[in-house]
Protein backbone atom coordinates (compact mmCIF):
# COMPACT_ATOMS: atom_id res chain seq x y z
CA UNK A 1 0.00 0.00 0.00
CA UNK A 2 1.48 3.33 -1.09
CA UNK A 3 1.24 6.59 0.84
CA UNK A 4 -1.28 9.31 0.10
CA UNK A 5 0.22 12.71 -0.81
CA UNK A 6 -1.67 15.99 -1.00
CA UNK A 7 -0.76 18.05 -4.05
CA UNK A 8 -0.40 21.85 -4.20
CA UNK A 9 0.22 23.69 -7.47
CA UNK A 10 1.42 27.25 -8.11
CA UNK A 11 -0.52 28.21 -11.26
CA UNK A 12 1.95 30.93 -12.24
CA UNK A 13 4.58 33.24 -10.75
CA UNK A 14 3.10 35.68 -8.26
CA UNK A 15 0.39 33.29 -7.02
CA UNK A 16 0.46 30.99 -3.98
CA UNK A 17 0.37 27.20 -4.21
CA UNK A 18 -3.21 25.92 -4.13
CA UNK A 19 -4.48 22.49 -3.14
CA UNK A 20 -5.59 20.54 -6.23
CA UNK A 21 -6.07 16.96 -5.03
CA UNK A 22 -4.00 13.96 -4.04
CA UNK A 23 -1.91 11.14 -5.50
CA UNK A 24 -0.54 7.81 -4.30
CA UNK A 25 3.20 7.18 -4.45
CA UNK A 26 5.80 5.14 -2.57
CA UNK A 27 8.14 8.13 -2.13
CA UNK A 28 8.42 11.89 -2.63
CA UNK A 29 10.11 11.75 -6.03
CA UNK A 30 7.41 9.47 -7.45
CA UNK A 31 4.72 11.62 -5.82
CA UNK A 32 6.07 14.67 -7.68
CA UNK A 33 6.15 12.83 -10.99
CA UNK A 34 2.64 11.45 -10.50
CA UNK A 35 1.35 14.89 -9.51
CA UNK A 36 2.89 16.38 -12.65
CA UNK A 37 1.19 13.75 -14.85
CA UNK A 38 -2.18 13.95 -13.13
CA UNK A 39 -2.56 17.66 -12.37
CA UNK A 40 -0.48 19.62 -14.91
CA UNK A 41 -1.17 18.09 -18.33
CA UNK A 42 -2.18 21.50 -19.67
CA UNK A 43 0.45 23.77 -18.14
CA UNK A 44 -1.67 24.39 -15.05
CA UNK A 45 1.42 25.01 -12.94
CA UNK A 46 5.00 26.22 -12.68
CA UNK A 47 5.71 24.60 -9.31
CA UNK A 48 4.34 21.63 -7.35
CA UNK A 49 4.45 20.74 -3.65
CA UNK A 50 3.62 17.23 -2.45
CA UNK A 51 2.95 16.71 1.25
CA UNK A 52 2.37 13.37 3.02
CA UNK A 53 -1.34 13.53 3.88
CA UNK A 54 -0.78 12.14 7.38
CA UNK A 55 1.53 15.03 8.31
CA UNK A 56 -1.17 17.67 7.91
CA UNK A 57 -2.72 18.97 11.12
CA UNK A 58 -6.17 20.44 10.56
CA UNK A 59 -8.69 22.27 12.72
CA UNK A 60 -11.71 20.17 13.52
CA UNK A 61 -14.96 21.05 11.73
CA UNK A 62 -16.90 19.93 14.84
CA UNK A 63 -15.56 22.82 16.87
CA UNK A 64 -15.44 25.38 14.08
CA UNK A 65 -17.76 27.82 15.82
CA UNK A 66 -15.78 27.85 19.05
CA UNK A 67 -12.44 27.79 17.26
CA UNK A 68 -13.14 30.81 15.08
CA UNK A 69 -15.27 32.63 17.67
CA UNK A 70 -12.57 35.09 18.83
CA UNK A 71 -12.75 36.81 15.42
CA UNK A 72 -16.52 37.10 15.32
CA UNK A 73 -17.03 40.01 17.72
CA UNK A 74 -14.16 42.22 16.57
CA UNK A 75 -15.80 44.05 13.73
CA UNK A 76 -13.57 47.06 14.48
CA UNK A 77 -10.84 45.12 12.64
CA UNK A 78 -12.58 46.00 9.37
CA UNK A 79 -12.24 49.49 7.81
CA UNK A 80 -16.00 49.60 7.16
CA UNK A 81 -16.50 49.83 10.97
CA UNK A 82 -15.40 53.50 10.90
CA UNK A 83 -17.69 56.26 9.65
CA UNK A 84 -15.81 58.64 7.35
CA UNK A 85 -16.90 62.29 6.93
CA UNK A 86 -18.02 63.02 3.36
CA UNK A 87 -15.26 65.57 2.76
CA UNK A 88 -12.38 63.34 3.92
CA UNK A 89 -10.66 61.94 0.82
CA UNK A 90 -8.09 59.18 0.24
CA UNK A 91 -9.04 57.55 3.55
Amino acid at each position, binding site marked *: *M*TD*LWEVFVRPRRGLAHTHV*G*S*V*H*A*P*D*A*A*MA*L*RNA*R*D*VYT*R*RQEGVSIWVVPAHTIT*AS*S*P*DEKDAFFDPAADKIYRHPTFYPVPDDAEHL
Partner: protein
Amino acid sequence: MTLADAEPELLASFERTIAANDRIEPRDWMPEKYRSTLVRQIAQHAHSEIIGMQPEGNWITRAPSLRRKAILLAKVQDEAGHGLYLYAAAETLGITRDELVQRLLDGRQKYSSIFNYPTLSWADMGTVGWLVDGAAIVNQVPLCRSSYGPYARAMIRICKEESFHQRQGFEILYTLARGTPAQRDMAQDAVNRWWYPSLAMFGPPDAQSTHTGQSMAWGIKRFSNDDLRQRFVDMCVPQSAVLGLTLPDEALTWNEERGHYDFTRPDFEELGRVIRGDGPCNAERIERRQHAHADGAWVREAALAHAAKAAAGTGDDVEPAPVR
Protein backbone atom coordinates in the same frame (compact mmCIF):
# COMPACT_ATOMS: atom_id res chain seq x y z
CA MET B 1 -23.27 13.55 25.71
CA THR B 2 -23.26 10.43 23.53
CA LEU B 3 -23.05 10.44 19.75
CA ALA B 4 -26.71 9.44 19.51
CA ASP B 5 -27.66 12.51 21.55
CA ALA B 6 -25.57 14.75 19.31
CA GLU B 7 -26.92 13.35 16.05
CA PRO B 8 -30.10 15.46 15.71
CA GLU B 9 -28.02 18.64 16.05
CA LEU B 10 -25.37 17.34 13.61
CA LEU B 11 -28.06 16.37 11.12
CA ALA B 12 -29.73 19.77 11.44
CA SER B 13 -26.40 21.47 10.80
CA PHE B 14 -25.82 19.25 7.75
CA GLU B 15 -29.31 20.00 6.40
CA ARG B 16 -28.75 23.76 6.90
CA THR B 17 -25.53 23.60 4.89
CA ILE B 18 -27.31 21.77 2.05
CA ALA B 19 -30.29 24.15 2.16
CA ALA B 20 -27.97 27.16 1.95
CA ASN B 21 -26.48 25.60 -1.20
CA ASP B 22 -23.15 25.48 0.62
CA ARG B 23 -20.68 22.62 0.18
CA ILE B 24 -20.07 19.66 2.48
CA GLU B 25 -16.33 19.09 3.05
CA PRO B 26 -14.50 15.86 3.93
CA ARG B 27 -14.24 16.22 7.70
CA ASP B 28 -17.83 17.47 8.18
CA TRP B 29 -20.34 15.18 9.82
CA MET B 30 -22.63 13.63 7.20
CA PRO B 31 -25.40 11.01 7.24
CA GLU B 32 -24.07 7.52 6.53
CA LYS B 33 -26.38 7.21 3.51
CA TYR B 34 -25.01 10.46 2.03
CA ARG B 35 -21.48 9.09 2.40
CA SER B 36 -22.29 5.67 0.91
CA THR B 37 -24.29 7.18 -1.97
CA LEU B 38 -21.34 9.42 -2.85
CA VAL B 39 -18.82 6.58 -2.62
CA ARG B 40 -20.99 4.49 -4.95
CA GLN B 41 -21.52 7.31 -7.45
CA ILE B 42 -17.96 8.69 -7.48
CA ALA B 43 -16.45 5.18 -7.66
CA GLN B 44 -18.77 4.21 -10.51
CA HIS B 45 -17.70 7.36 -12.30
CA ALA B 46 -13.97 6.76 -11.65
CA HIS B 47 -14.21 3.15 -12.83
CA SER B 48 -15.98 4.36 -16.01
CA GLU B 49 -13.04 6.62 -16.83
CA ILE B 50 -10.57 3.76 -16.31
CA ILE B 51 -12.56 1.16 -18.29
CA GLY B 52 -13.36 3.87 -20.85
CA MET B 53 -9.70 3.87 -21.90
CA GLN B 54 -10.14 0.43 -23.49
CA PRO B 55 -12.56 1.06 -26.37
CA GLU B 56 -10.39 3.97 -27.54
CA GLY B 57 -7.02 2.46 -26.68
CA ASN B 58 -8.13 -0.20 -29.16
CA TRP B 59 -7.61 2.32 -32.01
CA ILE B 60 -4.39 4.12 -31.03
CA THR B 61 -2.14 1.94 -33.20
CA ARG B 62 -4.57 2.19 -36.12
CA ALA B 63 -5.26 5.93 -36.10
CA PRO B 64 -5.18 7.16 -39.72
CA SER B 65 -2.54 9.88 -39.21
CA LEU B 66 0.10 10.98 -36.73
CA ARG B 67 -2.09 13.96 -35.82
CA ARG B 68 -5.06 11.72 -35.02
CA LYS B 69 -2.83 9.34 -33.07
CA ALA B 70 -1.35 12.11 -30.92
CA ILE B 71 -4.84 13.45 -30.20
CA LEU B 72 -6.23 10.01 -29.31
CA LEU B 73 -3.27 9.31 -27.02
CA ALA B 74 -3.84 12.62 -25.22
CA LYS B 75 -7.53 11.84 -24.86
CA VAL B 76 -6.94 8.37 -23.42
CA GLN B 77 -4.36 9.85 -21.03
CA ASP B 78 -7.01 12.36 -19.94
CA GLU B 79 -9.41 9.50 -19.15
CA ALA B 80 -6.78 8.02 -16.82
CA GLY B 81 -6.35 11.45 -15.23
CA HIS B 82 -10.10 11.81 -14.76
CA GLY B 83 -10.24 8.42 -13.08
CA LEU B 84 -7.49 9.53 -10.71
CA TYR B 85 -9.14 12.88 -9.82
CA LEU B 86 -12.26 10.94 -8.95
CA TYR B 87 -10.51 8.20 -6.95
CA ALA B 88 -8.85 11.01 -4.96
CA ALA B 89 -12.28 12.57 -4.32
CA ALA B 90 -13.75 9.21 -3.25
CA GLU B 91 -10.85 8.62 -0.85
CA THR B 92 -11.76 11.78 1.09
CA LEU B 93 -14.89 9.85 2.16
CA GLY B 94 -12.78 7.31 4.04
CA ILE B 95 -12.47 4.48 1.53
CA THR B 96 -8.98 3.43 0.37
CA ARG B 97 -7.71 3.35 -3.21
CA ASP B 98 -6.90 -0.35 -2.88
CA GLU B 99 -10.46 -1.11 -1.84
CA LEU B 100 -11.89 0.88 -4.77
CA VAL B 101 -9.62 -0.89 -7.27
CA GLN B 102 -10.53 -4.27 -5.77
CA ARG B 103 -14.26 -3.55 -5.98
CA LEU B 104 -13.91 -2.81 -9.70
CA LEU B 105 -11.83 -5.92 -10.35
CA ASP B 106 -14.21 -8.30 -8.58
CA GLY B 107 -17.36 -6.68 -9.98
CA ARG B 108 -18.79 -5.33 -6.71
CA GLN B 109 -18.87 -1.81 -8.19
CA LYS B 110 -20.09 -0.96 -11.69
CA TYR B 111 -18.90 1.30 -14.48
CA SER B 112 -20.96 2.96 -17.20
CA SER B 113 -22.78 0.45 -19.41
CA ILE B 114 -21.69 2.38 -22.53
CA PHE B 115 -18.17 0.94 -22.38
CA ASN B 116 -19.52 -2.58 -22.84
CA TYR B 117 -20.16 -1.83 -26.51
CA PRO B 118 -17.39 -2.55 -29.06
CA THR B 119 -15.59 0.09 -31.17
CA LEU B 120 -15.71 -1.52 -34.63
CA SER B 121 -14.36 1.17 -36.96
CA TRP B 122 -12.32 4.39 -36.92
CA ALA B 123 -15.61 6.30 -37.20
CA ASP B 124 -16.43 4.94 -33.73
CA MET B 125 -13.65 7.18 -32.36
CA GLY B 126 -15.49 10.16 -33.82
CA THR B 127 -18.86 8.97 -32.54
CA VAL B 128 -17.63 8.13 -29.06
CA GLY B 129 -16.21 11.67 -28.82
CA TRP B 130 -19.29 13.36 -30.21
CA LEU B 131 -22.10 11.31 -28.60
CA VAL B 132 -20.60 9.47 -25.62
CA ASP B 133 -18.46 12.37 -24.40
CA GLY B 134 -21.26 14.74 -25.37
CA ALA B 135 -23.69 12.81 -23.15
CA ALA B 136 -21.06 12.68 -20.40
CA ILE B 137 -20.71 16.48 -20.53
CA VAL B 138 -24.49 16.97 -20.23
CA ASN B 139 -24.42 14.65 -17.20
CA GLN B 140 -21.31 16.19 -15.68
CA VAL B 141 -21.73 19.95 -16.01
CA PRO B 142 -24.43 20.04 -13.29
CA LEU B 143 -22.16 17.91 -11.06
CA CYS B 144 -19.73 20.85 -10.91
CA ARG B 145 -22.30 22.23 -8.42
CA SER B 146 -22.66 18.97 -6.48
CA SER B 147 -23.01 19.47 -2.73
CA TYR B 148 -19.86 17.47 -1.92
CA GLY B 149 -16.88 19.81 -2.33
CA PRO B 150 -14.15 17.40 -3.50
CA TYR B 151 -16.50 15.82 -6.07
CA ALA B 152 -17.59 19.21 -7.43
CA ARG B 153 -13.96 20.36 -7.70
CA ALA B 154 -12.94 17.19 -9.55
CA MET B 155 -15.87 17.65 -11.93
CA ILE B 156 -14.80 21.22 -12.76
CA ARG B 157 -11.40 19.95 -13.88
CA ILE B 158 -12.98 17.10 -15.83
CA CYS B 159 -15.52 19.28 -17.63
CA LYS B 160 -12.81 21.69 -18.78
CA GLU B 161 -10.98 18.78 -20.39
CA GLU B 162 -14.03 16.98 -21.80
CA SER B 163 -14.88 19.68 -24.30
CA PHE B 164 -11.66 18.88 -26.19
CA HIS B 165 -12.81 15.26 -26.27
CA GLN B 166 -16.16 16.11 -27.77
CA ARG B 167 -14.75 18.50 -30.37
CA GLN B 168 -12.08 16.10 -31.60
CA GLY B 169 -14.82 13.48 -32.09
CA PHE B 170 -17.02 15.93 -33.94
CA GLU B 171 -14.08 16.84 -36.17
CA ILE B 172 -13.43 13.17 -37.04
CA LEU B 173 -17.08 12.68 -38.05
CA TYR B 174 -17.24 16.01 -39.93
CA THR B 175 -14.18 14.97 -41.95
CA LEU B 176 -15.49 11.46 -42.67
CA ALA B 177 -18.93 12.77 -43.64
CA ARG B 178 -17.21 14.86 -46.36
CA GLY B 179 -14.89 12.07 -47.51
CA THR B 180 -15.46 9.17 -49.90
CA PRO B 181 -18.86 7.41 -49.98
CA ALA B 182 -17.29 4.55 -47.99
CA GLN B 183 -16.04 6.97 -45.30
CA ARG B 184 -19.45 8.61 -45.15
CA ASP B 185 -21.15 5.24 -44.75
CA MET B 186 -18.70 4.31 -42.02
CA ALA B 187 -19.58 7.51 -40.13
CA GLN B 188 -23.33 6.94 -40.52
CA ASP B 189 -23.02 3.30 -39.42
CA ALA B 190 -21.16 4.35 -36.26
CA VAL B 191 -23.78 6.98 -35.40
CA ASN B 192 -26.54 4.40 -35.96
CA ARG B 193 -24.91 1.98 -33.52
CA TRP B 194 -24.05 4.50 -30.78
CA TRP B 195 -27.17 6.68 -30.70
CA TYR B 196 -29.41 4.56 -28.46
CA PRO B 197 -26.64 3.35 -26.11
CA SER B 198 -25.71 7.04 -25.68
CA LEU B 199 -29.31 7.90 -24.77
CA ALA B 200 -29.24 5.04 -22.26
CA MET B 201 -26.21 6.61 -20.53
CA PHE B 202 -28.60 8.93 -18.67
CA GLY B 203 -29.96 5.92 -16.80
CA PRO B 204 -33.46 4.52 -16.34
CA PRO B 205 -36.54 6.75 -16.74
CA ASP B 206 -37.30 8.95 -13.73
CA ALA B 207 -40.23 6.76 -12.68
CA GLN B 208 -37.89 3.76 -12.31
CA SER B 209 -34.83 5.52 -10.96
CA THR B 210 -34.12 4.28 -7.45
CA HIS B 211 -31.55 6.88 -6.43
CA THR B 212 -32.72 10.12 -8.05
CA GLY B 213 -35.09 11.50 -5.37
CA GLN B 214 -32.73 11.32 -2.42
CA SER B 215 -29.70 12.33 -4.48
CA MET B 216 -31.48 15.45 -5.69
CA ALA B 217 -32.64 16.35 -2.18
CA TRP B 218 -29.04 16.13 -1.01
CA GLY B 219 -27.73 18.15 -3.95
CA ILE B 220 -25.56 15.24 -5.13
CA LYS B 221 -27.52 15.30 -8.38
CA ARG B 222 -29.07 18.47 -9.82
CA PHE B 223 -31.36 17.27 -12.65
CA SER B 224 -33.33 14.08 -13.30
CA ASN B 225 -32.28 11.44 -15.85
CA ASP B 226 -35.12 12.28 -18.25
CA ASP B 227 -34.44 16.03 -18.13
CA LEU B 228 -30.78 15.50 -18.99
CA ARG B 229 -31.63 13.01 -21.75
CA GLN B 230 -33.99 15.56 -23.32
CA ARG B 231 -31.33 18.27 -23.12
CA PHE B 232 -28.87 15.96 -24.90
CA VAL B 233 -31.33 15.14 -27.72
CA ASP B 234 -32.10 18.83 -28.22
CA MET B 235 -28.38 19.55 -28.60
CA CYS B 236 -27.62 16.64 -30.93
CA VAL B 237 -30.31 17.20 -33.56
CA PRO B 238 -28.92 20.50 -34.90
CA GLN B 239 -25.35 19.18 -34.59
CA SER B 240 -26.22 16.11 -36.69
CA ALA B 241 -27.54 18.48 -39.39
CA VAL B 242 -24.18 20.30 -39.42
CA LEU B 243 -22.43 16.95 -39.75
CA GLY B 244 -24.76 15.94 -42.55
CA LEU B 245 -25.51 12.64 -40.79
CA THR B 246 -28.90 11.36 -39.65
CA LEU B 247 -29.90 10.12 -36.21
CA PRO B 248 -31.53 6.68 -36.47
CA ASP B 249 -34.95 7.67 -35.16
CA GLU B 250 -37.91 8.27 -37.48
CA ALA B 251 -39.98 9.61 -34.60
CA LEU B 252 -37.55 12.47 -34.04
CA THR B 253 -39.65 15.64 -34.52
CA TRP B 254 -39.75 19.14 -33.05
CA ASN B 255 -42.64 19.53 -30.63
CA GLU B 256 -43.66 23.18 -30.75
CA GLU B 257 -45.83 22.89 -27.67
CA ARG B 258 -43.15 21.37 -25.44
CA GLY B 259 -40.32 23.35 -27.00
CA HIS B 260 -38.34 20.10 -27.26
CA TYR B 261 -37.74 17.29 -29.72
CA ASP B 262 -39.89 14.18 -29.36
CA PHE B 263 -37.79 11.05 -29.67
CA THR B 264 -37.84 7.28 -29.27
CA ARG B 265 -36.64 6.11 -25.86
CA PRO B 266 -33.69 3.73 -25.72
CA ASP B 267 -34.36 0.09 -24.92
CA PHE B 268 -34.19 0.13 -21.12
CA GLU B 269 -34.43 -3.66 -20.93
CA GLU B 270 -31.23 -3.83 -22.96
CA LEU B 271 -29.67 -1.29 -20.58
CA GLY B 272 -30.66 -3.52 -17.66
CA ARG B 273 -29.11 -6.57 -19.32
CA VAL B 274 -25.85 -4.73 -20.05
CA ILE B 275 -25.66 -3.40 -16.47
CA ARG B 276 -26.24 -6.92 -15.12
CA GLY B 277 -23.21 -8.11 -17.09
CA ASP B 278 -24.74 -9.38 -20.31
CA GLY B 279 -23.46 -6.75 -22.78
CA PRO B 280 -21.27 -7.43 -25.83
CA CYS B 281 -17.96 -6.66 -24.05
CA ASN B 282 -18.53 -6.90 -20.26
CA ALA B 283 -16.35 -9.97 -19.75
CA GLU B 284 -13.60 -8.71 -22.06
CA ARG B 285 -13.37 -5.30 -20.35
CA ILE B 286 -13.03 -6.68 -16.83
CA GLU B 287 -10.65 -9.43 -17.88
CA ARG B 288 -8.43 -6.87 -19.60
CA ARG B 289 -8.42 -4.68 -16.47
CA GLN B 290 -7.59 -7.67 -14.24
CA HIS B 291 -4.68 -8.58 -16.52
CA ALA B 292 -3.39 -5.01 -16.64
CA HIS B 293 -3.54 -4.81 -12.84
CA ALA B 294 -1.74 -8.14 -12.41
CA ASP B 295 0.86 -7.27 -15.08
CA GLY B 296 1.63 -4.01 -13.26
CA ALA B 297 2.15 -5.68 -9.88
CA TRP B 298 5.94 -5.93 -10.28
CA VAL B 299 6.17 -2.19 -10.97
CA ARG B 300 4.27 -1.34 -7.79
CA GLU B 301 6.38 -3.78 -5.79
CA ALA B 302 9.64 -2.45 -7.24
CA ALA B 303 8.68 1.17 -6.47
CA LEU B 304 7.80 0.26 -2.88
CA ALA B 305 11.04 -1.73 -2.46
CA HIS B 306 13.07 1.18 -3.82
CA ALA B 307 11.34 3.60 -1.46
CA ALA B 308 11.91 1.30 1.53
CA LYS B 309 15.58 0.89 0.62
CA ALA B 310 16.04 4.64 0.20
CA ALA B 311 14.28 5.32 3.53
CA ALA B 312 16.57 2.84 5.29
CA GLY B 313 19.60 4.43 3.60
CA THR B 314 20.97 1.05 2.54
CA GLY B 315 20.82 1.43 -1.23
CA ASP B 316 23.50 2.78 -3.53
CA ASP B 317 20.94 4.54 -5.68
CA VAL B 318 19.13 6.42 -2.94
CA GLU B 319 19.17 9.80 -4.70
CA PRO B 320 15.77 10.28 -6.29
CA ALA B 321 16.00 10.97 -10.00
CA PRO B 322 15.41 14.66 -10.79
CA VAL B 323 11.98 15.51 -12.12
CA ARG B 324 12.09 16.80 -15.67
